[in-house]
Every structure is written in structure tokens, then in C-alpha cells.
């Protein structure tokens, strides 16, 4: 370390570095060892050790003054680019979070992937991902940030396409990478704008409390920094680029469609990367560059976040693929976080990031466990069905109690019922959204209201998911009576991580007071904004209204899915078999609630598929078309010009030799004509 840091800080730095480096060592070892079961242990031990270091760093650094340690990396022109780490609350929190999520997932994976041919490859990739992710959170400059930002995407690419012989997986990873690349380009442009304005890549210099960004202003269409002034449009462009990056990584509208497709990867990967860590990187980025955004840009963030949240939730309602439901849910929750950033609820947003990481990861692990069993059934009975379809499941709560319980805890956290972590974080966002809207024009009320509706939709789909999977009867055996069913909870490698994560979904981990999000330690450490005096009525009304209605929704769902056992969608032919009252309820439910929502949902889904994806396909086609066109231009115009020149040269040559008739008198005549022509020319001039 170049700077002289106090010994304490120096060790902290080394610990942090060790935490980053260990996974890459594991990666290297696995990479060169090739096949072998040892890979799982190597990676897991590495991540375990990393977790320990991360915890130490966290302990030492949480709420302590930030540490910024650098070594010179290279010098380009007049700019010395340093490599270093920046440890503040944000980074150490994420450092710990990633590890705490990654460790259970590693353990889980050892069981989950144990029969896969690519076992060691899997852990190689996984370690690489951990390395990239951990490095991403601690690095101190934009170049490195971009580097790891993209490496995270790359490892995600590798993991989504882990089963590379499956066409869908390969399509999905390509899509994911390219969409992320769009975001990367945005980020790159943003970085370049910042660099050209501030001539540095250093995050601390740029974004610290009294950093360069904080001291520059946007006035009269100009972006003024101490040394240079450029048109404000570049500031907008930087923000747009950053937003694009966030949208791509955190699957925000309109770049969200890769995430559902990314579910083609192993479930454990989805749990780690596409639920808890990588997708949160966008939020992390927002947290890092927060000072850059002006008020209007934040408003735009809020709107888009809110819209994404609502849209994804409404889509999640009707999905039947277990992992897709969770994927849309993730998009929705990320939307919450982005919106929270937009409304200035910086602390809540990060808080939600943390809590969400736990419960969503847990949900995926649960899903993985269930799918694992379903696959087992499929293979054992030599059937052909989609093991991820929740319509085939049901009643698993007795077969898989631990899984069930953890699922319920995670689900409740996701819904945001009291005593869970989700309650704490989500509540805060909602309350602050209402408070924020008070300061804005009336139209902005839509945002908190839409958020509220989204919460209820969340409650519904979570309930639907849990009921479909764990309640009622096992629907597959109704269709195939002779089904061999050896369904049970997974091995300890499944259970221990799940239980651990379930514990993390409960309130004591974050706040001793289960009802007041302001008391959460994470929240407190992130300098909450000032307008949250518990004076206003939102703080009472919203939690109560929200939770009561949520419970109501869950009950509806219970009514529909457990008591009814029939999908409300196909009600007409099945209704008479059930009680009138229930039918009436269903009818009402259909008419009043489900159908409109479903309509919106299908509409939005269609929009998602046809509209956004269609648009992307359209762009894709346009690009391909342009590519073909330019290839044609290349062949026919550019090369054609060349061939034309060659033909021209040959024709001139042909003309020149056309005089060469072989007749000597003709030659003489030509010569004489030339001379006489010269004489006449001479006379005329």
C-alpha cells in the first residue's frame, strides 16, 4: 500500500483483499485441476474463509471512517490510474452480504450439482463469480468498477449457459450478455463523460461527500466543474448511461427480459446471482454514484422503478414456472429498490437490498429443492414433464417439512408481514414513498399507490406459489395414479443453508424492534433522510392497511388455490362441483379482481413478450438487416467500385491497343494524324 495507513486500517485492507483474492485462487486451482469432486470443497472452503475475513472487515469497518488504499496501477498520459480498495459502509456491507449469501449457496450447490458432469466446472465458474462480485464492491475507481461489473456479467453468462448443450440456455446466456452489454456501454459512456469532465476515475474523489461531483453544478444548461465546463447534456448522458447500466444489471424496464430467461441456469446459480447478488449490483452502483443524480433524474428513477415493480408483480401472478415466478418477483423487488433510490430513500433501498437478498435467495433454494425432487420423480418414473411447473406440484408440505417452513418464512418476508425482515425494509420504502409524494405534484401520488398495489400483488403471487406447491394434493399423481413418489427433504447440504437463510429472514437479525424500520441498524448507518419524523400518519396507517390487506389477499389466494384446488382461470366447467358460496367467491374474485388483473397481467406479459422483447427482436432484426445491407454494400459498392476501376483500366488499355491492328500503314496514318493534329492545334492556339 502506497499510502501510509494506520496499522489497524492496513490489516483491514489486507483482510478485505484476502477476501477478494481467495475465490480467485479457488478459481485458479479448480481451473487447472479440471475434473474432480474436490472442486466443490475447494470453492466452499475458500468462500468460507472469505466470509470470515469479510466478517472481520465488516466488524472493524462498519460505521468507521472510510479506508481508501491504493497502489499505482498504470499511468496513461497525465492520468495516474490507481488500483485500490475503498471500504466504507456500503462496500463492507455488500462484502459481507455477498459472502453470507454465497457460503450457503456453495454448500447447497455441492449437493445440488453433485450428479452433474460439470461439477468442477460449476464451482470454477462460481468462484470466479464470487471473486468478481466481491471485487466489484470493494474497488475504488471507475475503471476497475467497470471491469468487475462486466466480469460479473461474464460469469453470469457462463453460469446461465452452464448446460451449454441446451439451446435455450445458450440463447438465454447470449441474450443476458448482450443486454448487459447495452448496460455496459451505458456505463462506459458515463465513465468517459465523468473522466472527460473530472479527469479522474477515483470513486472517492468523485463521489465522496465533498467530492468533485458534489461541488459541481448544473446551471443554465452548463455543467460546471471547478476546472472545466461542458454542456449539461453530458451530465444527462452520464446519468442516462448509468441508468442503462443499472437497468441492465438489475433488470429494470426496459432491459429486464433477460432475467426470466436466465433461469435456464442451475437453480443454485439463480439463487446466488440472479436473486441476491449480481442483480443487486445495479442498486449498489446507484448507491456509489448517488450524488451525481439531480432531482429530476431521481424522479425518473422512481417512476421507472415503480413501473417495473408493478409490471413484474402483475406478471408473476399468472406464471406457472416456479423459477419464472421468482424471477419476476425479483424484478419487481429490484424495482422497489430503484424506486426507493429515486425517492431519496437511500437507506431503505440498501436495507431492502440486504433483506431481499436473504429471502429471495432462500426462495430460490427452496425452489431448487423442490425442482430437484420433481426431477427425481421424473427420472424415476421416466415421465416427460416440466419439473418446474407448479401445476404439477402440490401438497409437498408433508413430504418436505423443512423446505416448507423455510419457504413460508421467506414468503412472508417477501410479502412483508410483520416479524420478518421484509416488513422492516418494505415498510420503510412505502412510507417514504408517501412522504415523498407529499412534496411533489399530485400526479406523483400514483407512485406510492402503485407501490401499494404491487405489494398486494406480491402477497397474492407468493401465496399462490406456496399454496400451489405445498398445499392440496400432489397433482401429478392425480393424473398418473401409479406414480412412484419418493419425495423428501434434501440432505443436510440443502437444509442447513436454507435454515440459516430462513433465520436471516427474521426481524431480530436486523432490528430488535419488529415494527419500526427506523431502528434497523443497517438503516441507521446510512444517514437516513430528514423528513421521516414519526409525526405523520403514514407511519401508522400504511403498515396497518398494507398488512391487513395483504393478509386478505393471502386468504383469497388460499381460498382459490387450496380450498378450491382449481385454477380460477378455468372456472366455468368446474364450478358446480364445489360449494355455491365458494363459487360465488370465485366468481366475484374473477370479476372484480382476478380478471382485470389477469387482463392487465396477460396484457403486460404480452407486451413484455411482444412489445419489449418484440422491440428487441425488432432491433435485432434491424441490426441484422443493417449488417446484411452493409455486407452487400461492401460487396457491391465498395468492392464494386474497385472492380469498376479495374474494368476502367482494362478498357483504357483496350482502347490503347485497338490501334495495334498489325497493319503498318495504319500505324503510319495514326502517327501522321497525331502530328498534323499537333500542327493544327499549334496554328489554332
Amino acid at each position, binding site marked *: 500500500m502506497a499510502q501510509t495507513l494506520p496499522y489497524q486500517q492496513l490489516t483491514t485492507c489486507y483482510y478485505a483483499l484476502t477476501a477478494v483474492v481467495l475465490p480467485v485462487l479457488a478459481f485458479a486451482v479448480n481451473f487447472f485441476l479440471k475434473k474432480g469432486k474436490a472442486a466443490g470443497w475447494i470453492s466452499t472452503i475458500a468462500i468460507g474463509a472469505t466470509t470470515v475475513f469479510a466478517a472481520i472487515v465488516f466488524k472493524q469497518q462498519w460505521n468507521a471512517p472510510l479506508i481508501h488504499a491504493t497502489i499505482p496501477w498504470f499511468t496513461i498520459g497525465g492520468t495516474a490510474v490507481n488500483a485500490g480498495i475503498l471500504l466504507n459502509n456500503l462496500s463492507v456491507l455488500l462484502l459481507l452480504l455477498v459472502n453470507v449469501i454465497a457460503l450457503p449457496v456453495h454448500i447447497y450447490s455441492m449437493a445440488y450439482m453433485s450428479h452433474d458432469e460439470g461439477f468442477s466446472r460449476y464451482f470454477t465458474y462460481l468462484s470466479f463469480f464470487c471473486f468478481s462480485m466481491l471485487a466489484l464492491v470493494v474497488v475504488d475507481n471507475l475503471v476497475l468498477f467497470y471491469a468487475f461489473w462486466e466480469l460479473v456479467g461474464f460469469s453470469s453468462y457462463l453460469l446461465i449457459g452452464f448446460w451449454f*448443450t441446451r439451446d435455450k440456455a445458450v440463447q438465454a446466456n447470449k441474450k443476458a450478455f*448482450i443486454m448487459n*452489454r447495452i448496460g455496459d456501454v451505458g456505463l462506459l459512456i458515463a465513465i468517459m463523460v465523468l473522466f472527460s469532465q473530472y479527469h479522474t476515475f477515483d470513486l472517492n474523489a468523485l463521489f465522496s461527500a465533498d467530492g468533485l461531483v458534489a461541488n459541481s453544478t448544473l446551471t443554465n444548461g452548463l455543467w460546471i466543474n471547478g476546472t472545466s465546463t461542458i454542456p449539461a447534456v453530458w451530465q444527462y448522458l452520464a446519468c442516462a448511461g448509468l441508468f442503462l447500466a443499472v437497468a441492465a444489471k438489475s433488470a429494470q424496464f426496459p432491459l429486464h427480459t433477460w432475467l426470466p430467461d436466465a433461469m435456464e441456469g442451475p437453480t443454485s446459480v439463480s439463487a446466488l446471482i440472479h436473486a441476491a447478488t449480481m442483480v443487486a449490483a445495479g442498486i449498489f452502483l446507484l448507491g456509489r454514484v448517488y450524488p451525481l443524480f439531480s432531482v429530476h433524474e431521481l424522479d425518473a428513477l422512481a417512476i421507472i422503478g415503480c413501473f417495473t415493480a408493478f409490471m413484474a408483480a402483475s406478471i408473476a401472478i399468472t406464471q406457472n414456472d416456479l423459477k419464472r415466478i421468482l424471477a419476476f418477483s425479483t424484478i419487481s423487488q429490484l424495482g422497489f429498490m430503484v424506486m426507493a433510490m429515486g425517492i431519496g430513500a437511500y437507506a431503505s433501498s440498501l436495507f431492502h437490498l440486504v433483506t431481499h437478498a436473504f429471502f429471495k435467495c432462500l426462495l430460490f433454494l427452496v425452489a431448487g429443492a423442490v425442482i430437484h425432487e420433481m426431477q427425481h420423480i421424473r427420472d424415476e418414473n421416466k415421465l416427460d414433464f416440466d419439473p418446474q411447473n407448479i401445476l404439477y406440484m402440490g401438497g409437498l408440505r408433508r413430504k418436505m417439512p423443512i423446505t416448507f417452513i423455510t419457504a413460508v418464512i421467506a414468503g412472508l418476508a417477501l410479502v412483508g408481514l410483520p416479524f420478518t425482515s421484509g416488513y422492516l425494509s418494505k415498510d420503510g420504502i412505502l412510507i417514504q414513498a408517501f412522504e415523498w409524494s407529499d412534496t411533489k405534484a399530485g400526479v406523483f401520488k400514483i407512485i406510492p399507490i402503485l407501490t401499494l398495489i404491487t405489494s398486494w400483488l406480491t402477497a397474492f403471487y407468493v401465496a399462490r406459489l406456496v399454496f400451489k406447491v405445498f398445499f392440496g394434493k400432489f397433482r401429478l399423481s392425480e393424473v398418473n395414479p401409479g406414480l412412484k413418489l419418493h419425495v423428501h427433504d434434501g440432505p443436510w447440504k440443502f437444509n442447513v443453508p436454507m435454515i440459516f437463510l430462513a433465520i436471516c429472514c427474521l426481524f431480530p437479525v436486523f432490528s430488535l424492534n419488529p415494527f419500526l424500520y427506523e431502528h434497523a441498524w443497517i438503516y441507521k448507518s446510512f444517514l437516513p433522510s430528514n423528513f421521516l419524523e414519526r409525526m405523520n400518519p403514514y407511519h401508522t396507517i400504511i403498515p396497518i392497511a398494507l398488512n391487513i390487506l395483504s393478509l386478505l389477499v393471502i386468504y383469497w389466494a388460499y381460498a382459490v388455490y387450496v380450498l378450491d384446488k382449481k385454477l380460477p382461470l378455468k372456472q366455468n366447467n368446474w364450478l358446480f362441483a364445489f360449494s355455491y358460496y365458494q363459487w360465488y367467491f370465485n366468481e366475484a374474485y374473477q370479476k372484480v379482481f382476478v380478471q382485470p388483473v389477469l387482463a392487465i397481467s396477460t396484457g403486460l406479459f404480452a407486451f413484455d413478450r411482444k412489445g419489449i422483447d418484440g422491440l428487441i427482436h425488432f432491433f435485432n432484426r434491424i441490426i441484422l438487416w443493417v449488417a446484411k445491407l452493409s455486407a452487400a454494400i461492401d460487396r457491391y459498392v465498395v468492392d464494386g467500385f474497385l472492380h469498376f476501376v479495374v474494368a476502367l483500366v482494362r478498357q483504357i488499355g483496350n482502347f490503347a491497343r485497338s490501334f495495334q491492328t498489325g497493319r503498318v500503314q495504319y500505324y503510319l496514318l495514326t502517327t501522321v494524324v497525331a502530328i498534323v493534329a499537333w500542327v493544327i492545334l499549334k496554328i489554332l492556339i
Partner: protein
Amino acid sequence: MNLLTLLIFIPLLAGLVIAVMPSSLRGSFKYITLLTAVIQLVLSVLIYLNFKTGATHAGVVHEDQFQFVQKLPWIRLNLGGVGDLQIDYFVGIDGVSVTLLVMSALVMIVAVIASWEIKTNLKGYFILFLILDMAVFGVFSALDFFLFYLFYELMLLPLYFLIGMWGGPRREYASIKFFLYTLFGSVFMLLVMVGLYLSVKDPVTGNHTFNIIQMMNPANYDAGSVFSALSHQTILGMPARMVGFVVLFIAFAIKVPVVPLHTWLPDAHVEAPTPVSILLAGVLLKIGGYGIIRICAGIFPDAAVQSSYWLGLLGVISILYGALNALAQRDLKRLIAYSSVSHMGFVLLGIASFTAEGISGAIMQMVSHGFLSSMLFFLVGVVYTRVHDRDIYNFRGLATLMPSYTLFVVIAFFASLGLPGFSAFVAEAFSLAGAFKSANTNGLLPQWMAACGALGILLGAGYFLWTLQRMFFGTPLLKGGESWKLSLTDINWRERSALIPLAFMALLLGVMPSLVFNKINDSVLLLVDFTRQFIK
């Protein structure tokens, strides 16, 4: 013995040795060539290690700051009226050239290894190869324009034959196209060279001189000479210096190649045998970029700065156009050839910015592309030698059949598309950063160019990933069926030995770009400083 001279002429020596050896020893030719290449690598590494940095060793426009200089009087023709024709054997390097030398030396080795696949006319092949080898190093080290031009042209003929004799089915067309294209550029370069020679006088001897460094000093120009900045001469109504610059630029742009002067490249690459493709993409394209920096920008900084907008525009067009064309290809080699066009566009964009970041990025991109394109072409050669087919649609699921091969392909592809951790990322990022910064610092390039250039990165991901998906992933399905399956064995130790160093270098430079930047920084800064005074 001067290291640089040794470096340049060792291949010639080896070529002579091969020339006099009887054909019965033809098996040993490749080993001799390999040995030569290894010696060259050792020498170039020695040079690299002994290369001094610091503001007093920046070079560029200061003749005394060049290193490993050897200057011998060579041609002194008494021409009567206008004094002696003064041509020196003058070689030396500064930051701009040193990294390119090391890169070239390594790529040479890879090309020699790739030459194992050559089975016919070994003697001719290796002699031509070695002549080419010599010319390449000569070009990078020559500081006398005449010498530079000599080496520059000396590359044409060996390449013509290498493509023409050992190439694919349309080799005649490709080789003649290549030759004519390049010659077109270089003949006009000759005219400008002569014009420069007659405009510049060596202040010491008073003779006209071909010394490139002296051509950079406006004080050395004869008052009233064509290219004197003060005399404001015109050629066909255009400012003479601008004409000179444009002509030189076109000559080098053909080499780079810059759209729309690129169409020789896909044909040449597709038809060339693998080692020649490697050399072509890995080394020869760099000569274009090197020439633009050293010659165009060095000798005509005023014109270069004036026309930087157009240079940048051409760079951006190359980036996008090359990438789009790559997307439309189904021949793997052609795809990679077009990707070269796209990647070299970054070089031009970086240079056009005339910022330290941009030019460093451009040089880095040249070095990086040298490694990566060699790797890519080598990889194409691997498949092609096995089944003699390169059509992307004829393959599927190669990852299952050739896992190690696929690993290298993935590395090469991702490194090429600018994945951080590999050299191309640093290079492209800083080329773009330079271009971006330009608007702010010297006002030469508008920012939208950099932004458009960034789109090229995106498109790059498009075609590489598409290829990966289409060709390597999925379940194996080959056009040639079982027989192909049998021939498509995974890469062997020899192929590995070529690929690993390249991949390693790409990675090393990605992680430690200072290996390049430290050596070039002083020169780049000086160059930027030097050009800055011409910015109005």
C-alpha cells in the same frame, strides 16, 4: 553489434541459410525458422527490458532521445545541382515502437508454429516468411524514410506469394487485390516521400535528407519548398501539406485498414493460410497504425490535427461498419477479418483524438489486437486444417467435441469483445476515453463519436456471442457427419503452445497494462505535446 540491427537482419541470415540448404533437409526448415523467431523474441525482450523511460528518452521528435540507435551513412548519390542524396541506414526506437517490436516477435513465433500445417514448397515458404519477418522489424525500427519505405514495400511481395501460393481457392484474386491495393497507397506515398525529401534539409550537412525525425522539425524545411509550413504552397488548389498528409494517410489507411479501403482484407484473410493470416492481422495491420502515428502525425501534425475530425469519423465508421459486416458473415475467418476492421477502427479513433489517453489506447489496441487476432486466426486454422471448412452453419456443439479448443475460443472471443481483464478492454476503453476527452481538452472530436464507437463494443458482443452459440454450444451436429467427428480432435500440444502465450499475454496486459503504458507514456506525452501546438 546493435541489438536492433541484429533483430532486423537475423531472419535474413536464416533465410540465406535455408536458401543454400538442400531440399532433402526440408524437415529442418521450420525448426530453423522457429529458432530464428525465438532468438528474435529474446532480443526483443532484451530490448524491452533495457528500454529506458523518462522524459529524456521520449524520442518522437528528438533524434537524440531515441534508443538502440544505429546510424550509418548508406547512400550518397551525387545528383549534381541539388546536393547529395543523403540516405542513412538509421534505425532506432522510442516508446511508440518498442512494444510493437515485442508483440511482433511473439506473433512471429506463433506464426511459425502455425506454419507446421504448410506441406508444400517448404523452402520457398520459409524464405518468404523470413523476408517478411525482416521487413516487419525493419519497418518498426526505421527512422529514415527511405529505409522505412524499403521495408514497407518489401513486405508486399512475400505476402503476395505467401497468399498466392499457399492460399485457398480464390487466392489469385485475393493476393493480387491485396498487392494492388497496397501498392496504390505506397506509390503515392513515394511521391510524398520524395516531396518531403526535397523540402527538408539536414541542418548539419546541408543536404536534403530522408531522416524522418528531421522532417518533423519545421525549421528544417527549405523556405519555399512544397511542404514547408511557412510557404503555404498548394497542390491542385489544396494546401500542399494537407495533400501530403492525406496521401500518406491513405497509404497507411489501406494497411490498417480503414473503411472504405478495407475490402482487400477479408479476401486476403480468407484465402491466406493460417500463419499468413496471423501475420497479416497480428503484425501487418499494425504497420498502418504505426505509420499514421509516426509518419502522418509526426511529419504533418498541423494537417493531422486539422483533419482529425475526419480521421475520427473514419475510425467510428470502421468500428461500426466492420462490426455490422462481421454480423452478416457466415465464414468464420471472414467474420474475424471484419472484426479486425472494427477493432482497428479504435486505433484510428484513438489517434484522431490527439490526447494521451487516445494515443496510448491506440497503441495498446495495436499490441492487444496483435495478440488477439493472431489467436483468433490460429483458432480458425485449427478447425480448418481438420475438416477444411469454416462455415459457421456447418458446425454445432463443438464445445462437446473439443472442450479445450472451445475454452481458447471463449477466451479469445471474450478478450476480443473487450472483456475486462484482457488487454483489449484497456485499449478500447482508453481509445474511447481519449476520444471523449478530446472534445473537452482540445476540441478535435465531438463526443458523439466516442459514444458511437462505444456502440461498436456492443455489436462486437453480438457477433462473437452469436458465433459461440451457433458453432460451439448446443448438441453436436456437423455437416460432415461422423467423419468430421473423427477428424475434429481436440487441440494438441503444439497448438496449445502457440495459444497459451497469446492468451497469457492478452491477460497479462489486461491486468498489468502498465507493461505497455509505462514504456510508451513519455513518448505519447511528447507526441501530444508536439501536436498540441498545431491546434488552433
